[in-house]
């Protein structure tokens, strides 16, 4: 909202603009599909708006929740509802294996994969950010000696109150094992056994009655802000935005954080490839990537970009030295293999 109006003029402007706004027919537009909330907001400010200004190409926004079924239908029927998608590593890998993403032609982007952090510039996707899943608590509700570890997160006696968890087995099983005393290096070795999965679910059973489940990433800080929970898992960037912009007294616990990357991907067979590449190239410029950190605290994946990041933001990125004393990287292969069967079990477990 640029100009705040009030009263009658606003009402008249509203009705007039509603009447006059015809469907906009634009020659060049690119549809970027991302995850909504403050994350999309950061992309809008760092990428979409400057891109439109620089090139005259309109950026249309849409949201998804990683529903690969829609991508499959889109590619099979060649009816594309998006040109560029923001994908997590699990979607990147499963889509790449299944032939759903274009293979990236780095020569069209004007940079090479080795300009990125290891594992960030891949066959099917160009890395954009590193993000962390961790937990935060409401420092107004828990004053002194706040929780320090996943074991504390599980400790209902010491820290009474509801917990927020994502409605997905991913991350939760890892956190449960960490709370159960598994060292982060052994997580996936143990999860690959049936006993390990049983152990994680048994640990989750302990706090199940206390859990409020969230789905979209934007819900986690909202649960904390509405005091529906005293602590919740969430994405570090969204929690950080709630702390800095909405002035919430949340504390993040980096100990035992799980890190993953997001990638720009293009659905296979897209007719408008050049536009998609143009957008990805723009969004991968080091200055642009650094600009995004001003709006949300996710780490840029291009090596040069770190030089442009404001020093005050650096300690809040998942890759900051203080934050990586005890952490783990999400095992994409494990989740690509097991997400469906674990999701099924998780859904059943939830409904019991």
């Amino acid at each position, binding site marked *: 909202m640029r100009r705040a109006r009030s009263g009658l003029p606003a009402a008249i402007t509203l009705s007039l603009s509603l009447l006059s706004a015809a469907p906009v027919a634009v020659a060049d537009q690119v549809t970027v599909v991302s995850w909504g909330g403050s994350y999309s907001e950061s992309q809008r400010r760092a990428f979409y708006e400057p891109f439109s200004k620089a090139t005259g190409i309109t950026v249309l926004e849409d949201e998804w*929740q*990683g*529903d*690969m*079924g*829609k991508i*499959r239908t889109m590619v099979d029927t060649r009816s594309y509802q998006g040109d560029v998608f923001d994908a997590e590593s699990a979607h990147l890998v*499963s889509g790449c*294996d*299944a*032939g*759903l993403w274009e293979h990236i032609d780095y020569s069209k982007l004007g940079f090479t994969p080795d300009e990125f952090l290891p594992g960030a510039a891949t066959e099917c996707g160009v890395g954009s950010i590193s993000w962390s899943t961790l937990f935060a608590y409401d420092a107004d509700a828990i004053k002194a000696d706040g929780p320090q570890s996943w074991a504390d997160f599980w400790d209902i006696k010491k820290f009474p109150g*509801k917990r927020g968890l994502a*409605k997905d087995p991913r991350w939760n099983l890892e956190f449960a094992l960490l709370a159960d005393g598994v060292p982060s290096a052994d997580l996936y070795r143990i999860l690959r056994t049936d006993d390990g999965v049983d152990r994680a679910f048994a640990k989750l059973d302990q706090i199940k009655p206390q859990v*409020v*489940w969230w789905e979209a990433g934007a819900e986690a800080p909202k649960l904390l802000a*509405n*005091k*529906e929970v005293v602590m919740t898992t969430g994405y570090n960037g969204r929690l950080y935005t709630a702390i800095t912009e909405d002035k919430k007294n949340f504390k993040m616990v980096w100990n035992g954080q799980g890190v993953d990357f997001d990638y720009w991907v293009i659905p296979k067979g897209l007719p408008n490839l050049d536009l998609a590449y143009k957008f990805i190239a723009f969004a991968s410029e080091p200055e642009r990537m650094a600009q995004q950190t001003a709006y949300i605290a996710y780490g840029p994946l291009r090596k040069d970009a770190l030089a442009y990041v404001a020093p005050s933001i650096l300690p809040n990125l998942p890759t900051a030295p203080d934050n990586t004393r005890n952490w783990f990287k999400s095992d994409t*292969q494990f989740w*690509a*293999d*097991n997400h*469906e*069967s*674990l*999701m*099924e*079990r998780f*859904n*059943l*477990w*939830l*409904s*019991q």
Partner: protein
Amino acid sequence: MTSRTHDLMRIGLEPTARARLRVNRQSVHALMLIGPCLLFLLITFAVPIAAMLFRSIEDPELADTLPHTAAAFQAWDGVGLPPENLVRIFAQDVAAARETGNIGVAARRLNFEVPGFRGLLLQTARDLPDPEAPDLLQRLSEADARWQDPLYWRAIKTAAPRFTARYFLAAAGLQPGSDGALVQPDPNRRIYPTLLLRTLWISLVVTVLCTVLGYPVAFLLATASTKYSNLLLLLLLLPFWTSLLVRTTAWLVLLQNEGLVNHVLVWAGLFDEPQQLIRNRLGLYVAMTHILLPFMILPLFSVMKGIPPVLMRAAYSLGAGPVRAFSRIYLPQTLPGLGAGALLVFIMSLGYYITPALVGGPGDQMLSYFIAENASATLNWGMAAALSLALMACVAVALVIFARIGSQALRLRA
């Protein structure tokens, strides 16, 4: 038909034939009017749904991506490890599928059978030994010991046929065992029967709630003077016409922890701290009852409106007490309206998606949610189609039962 009989008929049946011709012409006219709409609904609605439902018995992935393997493994007895020639056909198919980029589709499909098969197949495809080499199974097993486990080979056989009953079995909480008999899978994978029961239960509770709350309101509406009943009717129609999403949103705002209802409860001293009223069954019942209540009241109202008050008066004058007069005289006459309202509420509840998704918790999601989930997120069209069919069957059964009860009620009334 010979020309002779034809002539005979023409002579003998002249008037009837002309009458029939007239009827036919009328029918043709009628069909010309109905035709466009029927054709439209067929193309935009019926055929798409039928095509989607067909997916519930289809299992084309392996048959399409590893065609020779699919054919050969169907003939295999499935005991122990497969013979060398089958392994060779499999290796050749995998090599071909890797060329065309279809290997991921086969890997996904097999991962449904054995979690982890996806990674195994993709890795194997990457480092595939020469399909023409001798001792192929041995070579595969050296690369990954899992190929020595008959489990994986049996999974290929299971996924090979193009048509399958597995989705319906899964919906019923069953799966085919290794020897062909039906077995119950381990309890951690048996979700759908629970879901079906939950969907029916929620719909039933909402229907009962709507009946209990709606009956007195409809009675009041039907017996109040026109001046009042018109006003009340408008009050009833306002929520009826308000967007479902708007009403669901309203409940979200009202029932959240910092919402008005919680404020009132705490202020009134009923609770010390805000209670959780949304993301659970309670919130779902409240919101669904609110949304569906008009569908119960309106049919009841129109039936009650037609019941002459003189009947009740007669019952009283003949000495019936209020309870008796109500249960013997009034209630039976309102049964058609009650049946219609209950039917509407029940079948609409069965298909609810938006409201549970927003107001309900994870344990309150209904069949529709999992249909959408299977279609869009996990890409399991077969399962989505089988569940759709199960949901439509519930609706159909409800329609039939209510039609029976309805006609009986009408007979009672007559």
